[in-house]
């Protein structure tokens, strides 16, 4: 609560404290969703700038963490939508796939993840977000509905459509299909 009051009073130390405390959470969400350290890093900063600019709208000071998480999610959907539009207009963001692997990851695993994120790029922003929140972040349907402002039926539909599409697309990629066919167990994490 004191932290929120200090942020509202525009105290620099509070911004640093909030960043140090919550940036890893936001970065984690974004990096798992985007598969790009650079994009996630930039977007994490944007999320916090937006949070600090809108901190006065936070009604319950004890809910700062949820406030930041919701903001990160909104920013993620906006980013995915913008990125998708750019891709549709120019076929590619930059002509190259972005960084999609962590240092130290084996090359085969890196390639698999690169392919998988490439496949997720085919999904719409809402479907991709719902898919990631459900299957990667492990949230419940109710929670996804609350966070994204969608009804339960809509959330279910988005996840089902995304899941079906991911499966179809994965089957169309020979290496992914082979990996998934083997259960992913041979070189699992």
């Amino acid at each position, binding site marked *: 609560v004191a932290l929120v009051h200090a942020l509202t*009073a*525009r*105290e*620099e*130390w509070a*911004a*640093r*404290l909030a*960043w*140090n*405390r919550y*940036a*890893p959470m936001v*970065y*984690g*969400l974004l*990096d*798992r969703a985007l*598969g790009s*350290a650079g994009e996630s*890093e930039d977007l994490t*900063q944007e999320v*916090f*700038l937006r949070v*600090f600019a809108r901190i006065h709208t936070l009604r319950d000071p*004890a*809910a700062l*963490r*949820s406030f930041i998480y919701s903001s990160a999610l909104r920013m993620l959907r906006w980013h995915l939508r913008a990125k998708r539009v750019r891709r549709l207009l120019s076929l590619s963001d930059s002509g190259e796939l972005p960084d999609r692997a*962590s240092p130290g990851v084996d090359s085969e*695993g890196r390639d*698999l*993840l690169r392919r*998988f994120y490439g496949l997720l790029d085919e999904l719409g922003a809402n479907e991709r977000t719902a898919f990631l929140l*459900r*299957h*990667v*972040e*492990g*949230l*419940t*349907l*109710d*929670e996804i509905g609350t966070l994204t402002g969608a009804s339960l039926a809509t959330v*279910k539909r988005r*996840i*089902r459509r995304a*899941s*079906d599409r*991911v*499966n179809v697309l*994965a089957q169309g990629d020979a290496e*992914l299909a082979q*990996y*998934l066919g083997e*259960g*992913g*167990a041979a070189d*699992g*994490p």
Partner: protein
Amino acid sequence: MDLRPGADTGAAPADALVERIRAQRGRMTTRQLVDGAHVVVARLGWSRRLGGRRWLSRTVAPAALMAVVGLAVWTIVRDRTRPIALVVAGGRLAGGGRVEADPRGGATLEFSDGTEVALSPDARTEVRSIDRHGARVVMSAGTAHVDVAHLEGARWFVDAGPFSIHVTGTAFTVSWNPDGERLDVDMERGTVEIDGPLSDRAIPLRSGQHLTVKVRERETVVRERGQPAPETPATIAATTKGPAEDAGQTDVESRMLPRPVLERAGSKATRAARQKAGGADRPERRWAAALAQGQFETIVGEAERIGVDSCLADAGESDLAALADAARYARHTEVARRALAALRARFPDAPAARDAAFLLGRLEETAGAPSKACEWYDRYLSESPAGTYASEALGRDMDLAQATYRAGRAEEIAHEYLRRFPQGTYAARARTIVHGP
């Protein structure tokens, strides 16, 4: 127990790839954290409130004079609206509050309220802000001995790398090594609270304690000052004696580890009894001892090498609970969830299994899932109405009800809390809910 989402939206597709994402992505490096803080603060352009720009502008002229005499002096008449005065012995203040030490020795910041900060020669330090209540000193590398005068309303902060130490009246030594990403805080007297990237909550430290945080290894260890730092064994299985078995460690670790862990790591008799209850033939990995040494990543790493499924199926109660704790501390949330669920499924009568309900609630709360968290807290309270975490579970349940705008439920829990724990941690908040602010 199935903690995964239900099947009404289709099976989780490409499970193995999703697991890969969870395992390999989402870790922010210290460099990203530190650099990001600079960028965000710079782009915010918020004034440094404790003294602010007025203070900086007053620094330049005196600093030039101080360079000549080898002593940096900057004074401001102290009244109710002006900051504490500062003298830099053995150095000077440069632009932006940067401390430039005399190359022959470290500088000492001497504040007019009696507070002193002695810097090592290699320390890279800034006095970021100052006012009549205290100051914020930011150290990006090196060591500082801090002795803060205990005055009413004092508000001092020492930032070391990505960590922020909140000080009232106390004396301690802090070191930050940016290359090794290691923080050390050695307490002489008083108390501090340390906020940083490895924990959601501030870590409290009291007189006589020493904190070591190794960010890269994600290790956080608190021990009594003067006791040797725990060594990292080549393999946990080779550890012959955990520090928690040594006299004097239990009290220290109790600040960092929940009581059940201490019990698990505590006596050989307790462990033997638990082994008997859980099955004598199970492999004992001594993870409880490693846990007490703060080797969270090592424990999870070993479980992953052996195979998490295999560990969940054959580990004894003590090892399973230690794995769950290590995974929670190191933020391997999915491993922690599965270990806690296995603990409840395989040892349903054990106290640790009942405690697991509370810990699962904490995991869900941290993951931003308040409704699931409340379910676990309610389950814990029904299974262990007088359990170790009863007050905390009820208090958090109340907070979550309030945070999710379920005012009626929050008030109901607040009444219950006040009836059961009138002097508890959440009592003041409960009274506010019941009687209004």
